[in-house]
């Protein structure tokens, strides 16, 4: 066990346990805040995999953006003042059997497959530079398409989330 293994075990346990709390907790606020630790754990795994830029992007986008958005969703769609934050579950038994079977099958397949791995990876230093070069050369078209998709999605989200009351008023003048 060297330092890499110990740190991996720490982040793996943090990720899986907090993901379990997200899924199994009865209180949706606990789920939302436990998702924070899952995202941080995954970011730690990215750092261990030599993906420093993606780890920072994960923290910025997931923790700073998506999680805040989800928390807004939780706050706006639940009666926070009353005690209506508990959420029910359904089909617990078939779902647990199905997902346990799936997890077992996936882990078994991952374990018995003889992966062709590159054992000694050369030290590439920080990845931001090469990632940026890749986006400007090989992946320039997907990069531009992704930017347009993001713009359209955000404008669409703003339009969809707006209340329809103003639309009614403008269409039917009184």
């Amino acid at each position, binding site marked *: *066990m060297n330092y890499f*293994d110990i740190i991996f*075990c720490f982040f793996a346990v943090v*990720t*899986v346990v907090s*993901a*379990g709390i*997200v*899924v199994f907790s009865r209180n*949706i606020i606990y*789920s*939302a805040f436990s*998702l924070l630790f*899952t995202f941080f754990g*995954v970011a730690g*795994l990215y750092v261990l*995999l030599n*993906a420093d*830029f*993606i780890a920072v992007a994960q923290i910025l986008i*997931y923790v700073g*953006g*998506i999680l805040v*958005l*989800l928390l*807004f*969703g*939780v706050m706006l*769609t639940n009666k926070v003042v009353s005690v209506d934050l508990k*959420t*029910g*579950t*359904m*089909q617990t038994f078939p*779902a*647990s059997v*199905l*997902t346990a079977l*799936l*997890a077992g099958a*996936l882990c078994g397949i*991952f*374990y018995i497959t003889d*992966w062709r*791995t*590159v054992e000694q990876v050369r030290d590439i230093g920080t990845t931001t530079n*090469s*990632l940026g070069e890749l986006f400007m050369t*090989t*992946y320039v078209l*997907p990069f531009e398409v*992704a930017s347009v*998709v*993001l713009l359209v*999605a*955000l404008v669409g*989200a703003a339009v*969809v*989330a707006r*209340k329809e009351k103003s639309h009614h008023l403008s269409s039917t003048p009184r």
Partner: protein
Amino acid sequence: MHIGLVHFLIVSALLFSLGLYGVITRRNAVLVLMGIELILNSANINFIAFARYGGLQMDGQAIAVFVIVLAAAEAAIALAIVLNIYHRFHTVNVDDISKLKE
């Protein structure tokens, strides 16, 4: 025991299964979205693990960036839809939302 590709893949498999369990069992639409985020994260771990160990090099990380971008777009749109559903039906229980139009 030395940590290698398999261990990262197993973590991602567990994360995927937990996310799928959340999507199947939870009634609250926001929690279903959280399950989807877990699934996307597990896919991303796979991409980056293969980028590190499978000789995929930077291409795997580039694809992971696209996954993060699409996850952000998906979360924004889905939450807008959930808010709209809440305004209309006064619930976010995915079982009760079975009509496109009232």
